[in-house]
């Protein structure tokens, strides 16, 4: 290729990345600029150097348009953290399910059935961050920082009492409903532990409702209780069936996995809050 051919090819490559109404004008100008830059050295090597100075066609075209930022730089680290964290959870849970039901090629089953489809997670996260960035730019007043409400530990007694009654009725129903057929092994060994923990939890929440607020002791007891519940639920699931009917057992275990995830998140949040409070009170 001679110098003019190189320049024409480059200009065409830049122009096709620009909006249609801008193309002809920018292409004509870019061509004249590159020829000016070449001056009297109209050989292919000089043309190559002049083109390299402008950068890849995509970069050159991007400079002719207003910058477009989909993911704010401030969101990049949280995006990466949540993406990697979520992918690790999906991959590990997927690996466990593949190990539990091994096929002829477990690696391929994990790769095609878990790893590749798991890319929905970073995609959803990216869309969420991009939308929130758009909202912040479009309505900056709404994106103004607001202080978090101060946590005084007070609880809404009526709301919590209603939730307590709901959970108490649920516990009674789990014990008394005649059409729930528990697995005999669960009924004999694991069931009583689950019931005991549910009752202790209800007592704890009753104390909080009567006091009208959380205090340091009830908060710490709550964290310990949640950890115990998590541990017992994992044991309950790993040790065998809970219900005699297979489909009921599968459905309940799915719900228990959800409860475990929510409990883990709750424990992390509450522990962080306690540690923060502790460091604040020890520093004053």
């Amino acid at each position, binding site marked *: 290729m001679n110098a003019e051919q190189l320049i024409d090819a480059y200009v065409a490559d830049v122009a096709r990345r620009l909006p249609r109404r801008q193309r002809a004008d920018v292409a004509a*100008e870019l061509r*004249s600029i590159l020829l*000016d830059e070449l001056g009297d050295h109209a050989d292919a090597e000089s043309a190559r150097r002049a083109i390299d100075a402008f950068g890849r066609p995509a970069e050159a075209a991007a400079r002719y348009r207003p910058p477009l930022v989909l993911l704010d730089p401030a969101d990049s680290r949280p995006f990466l953290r949540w993406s990697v964290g979520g992918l690790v959870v999906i991959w590990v849970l997927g690996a466990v399910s593949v190990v539990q039901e091994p096929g002829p090629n477990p690696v391929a089953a994990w790769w095609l059935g878990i790893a590749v489809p798991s890319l929905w997670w970073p995609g959803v996260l990216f869309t969420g961050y991009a939308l929130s960035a758009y909202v912040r730019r479009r309505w900056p007043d709404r994106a103004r920082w607001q202080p978090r409400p101060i946590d005084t530990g007070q609880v809404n007694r009526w709301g919590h009492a209603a939730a307590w009654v709901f959970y108490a009725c649920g516990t009674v129903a789990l014990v008394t409903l005649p059409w729930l057929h528990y697995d005999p092994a669960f009924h004999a060994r694991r069931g009583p532990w689950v019931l005991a923990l549910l009752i202790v939890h209800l007592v704890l929440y009753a104390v909080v409702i009567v006091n009208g607020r959380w205090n340091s002791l009830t908060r710490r007891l709550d964290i310990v209780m949640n950890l115990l519940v998590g541990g017992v639920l994992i044991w309950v699931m790993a040790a065998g069936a809970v219900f005699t009917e297979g489909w009921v057992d599968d459905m309940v275990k799915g719900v228990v996995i959800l409860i475990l995830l929510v409990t883990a998140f709750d424990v992390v949040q509450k522990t962080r809050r306690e540690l923060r409070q502790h460091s604040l009170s020890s520093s004053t």
Partner: protein
Amino acid sequence: MELELRRGVIVLAVLSQLGSFRYGYELRQALAEQGMAIEEGTLYPLLRRLENQGALVSEWRTDGGSPRRYYTLSDEGRALYARLTGSWKELTATMDRLLEGAS
């Protein structure tokens, strides 16, 4: 660091040289001769963006040679140039005071 420092003054440097019509390469040469070398990939798209923002106006001229796009300040660009010049003078005065105080 130096690059970032220079990036902040490129617009003002360009506006300062466009009191009359100039084409891109001529402007780049003029800036380079006065010690303000600007990469071609930065300068030419900047002229376009300034034109889109209304600070510059342009027209194609041939002047006996190949056609070139010539740029100059618009009325809006002149006002912008005056405003940025004022800001620049305040900034350099402040920086002079700070640097003198530090030495």
